[in-house]
């Protein structure tokens, strides 16, 4: 008799499982999914703006795209830190390994990589604030 299995995988709704144990990953994934569809609309609005000068609408969409990109930007910066330190910063490597292997790592660079995502994040948010002031206020 064939083995009968029950496969739940394959539905985007399963992303919500993350919410119960990893909110950061949940937000990252949800924003990314929204961004995929939103980027079509935004690109359309920008094209229209190019010809018909619908400034207020295109500015609002630009700022929304900016918001939806935020988790991607932060996670990409974290990814860079993870790569640069081989998982010593923002990684989840085995704790006893981290204490014994720490001596082979470039400690100086580690502190730079620890703050890198926060610097990128601060720059990204300041960009949003500057544009918001410029366009909306």
């Amino acid at each position, binding site marked *: 008799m064939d*083995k*009968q*299995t*029950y*496969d*739940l*995988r*394959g*539905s*985007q709704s*399963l*992303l919500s*499982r*993350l919410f*119960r*144990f*990893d909110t*950061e*990953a949940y937000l*990252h*994934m949800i924003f*990314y*999914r929204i*961004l*995929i*569809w939103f*980027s*079509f609309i*935004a*690109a359309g609005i*920008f*094209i229209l703006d*190019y010809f018909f000068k619908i400034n207020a609408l295109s500015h609002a969409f630009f700022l929304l*795209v*900016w918001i939806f*990109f935020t988790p*991607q930007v932060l*996670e*990409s910066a*974290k*990814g860079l830190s*993870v*790569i640069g330190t*081989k*998982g010593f910063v923002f*990684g*989840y*490597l*085995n*704790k006893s*390994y981290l204490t*014994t*292997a720490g001596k*082979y790592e470039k400690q100086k660079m580690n502190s730079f990589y620890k703050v890198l995502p926060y610097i990128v994040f601060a*720059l*990204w948010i300041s*960009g949003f604030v*500057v*544009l918001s002031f*410029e366009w909306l206020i």
Partner: protein
Amino acid sequence: MRESIKIAPLYIAMIGVPILMFLFLLSYVFFPYANTILMPLIIAGLLVFGVSGAREVYLQKQKETGIKLNGNLYGKTVTHGGVIKENGAKHVTVKIKRFNIVTRKIEPNIFKIGADKFTTVLDALILIKEKKDKTLSMRYSCRMGICGSCGMVVNGKPVLACETNVLKNAKNDEIEVAPMQGNPILKDLVDDFDDFFEKHQSINPYLYRKNKNEQYAAKEEFRQTQEEIERFLPYSYCIMCGLCMDACPIVNTNPSFIGPQALSQVYRYKSDTRDQKENRIENVDVLEGIWSCEFAGACSKVCPKGVDPATAIQLLKSDAMKNIIKKDE
């Protein structure tokens, strides 16, 4: 690897668009005319992003397998009565969301047990099986976090049942146990690992030597320095419990993604100086390989052994990029 679609433009757009947006901001403030160049580039980037992202979602949809739950995740509640009294134990309600092979639905069964401060979820399940419901199925072996058999989802988080304390995790004296969904389910809390092992096997998870005598009848040992060992050590701790696969949002939504466990093992073997297998990175440098990973990082957070598959995958991506640059030079 099954599909050989090279790096999606999505990843270039993902990095490019934010950079362009930032340049746009600078140009907006200092050089107003640069906008005319940057804006079309941003539009093009967003379109590429949208098209590639939509394609990815479409591919995932296309590859959906198995039967859908049709939103009825909870089924009807069946309560088994009685309270087990144990010395000094607190009463805890264990809600087991088990897959019923007859109705082909996940249905919650409620059991009341006594748990003391040492009781693990696995102890609770064994107790329920012995005293309350002999039909309850779960997989376990070592009971000490070594064999990787008892992976399940407790209060929404993928964990090893034998390493999860009942009282520490009970909320209002209730704890919820469910099967992992990152693999097909066989019965109750038992997952089918065929797909998991197929993916693991596909990356050739063993040390390979070009000289077959060295591989099967080595006359001398292959010495490594401490530093060489440290390069792959944490990645070799994998006990194949499948928790990372269950936590991974991409595995959950796209079963054809090879997944964090197999990819962490690609990094483990490619970093080992004793291994001589070529193209380990090239084989996973495809859409269903490293490039499906969106760096959610959930896999690493649930790994009970500190293997950190997310780090391994990002390092593989960086190595794949370096390979491309090297080839172009």
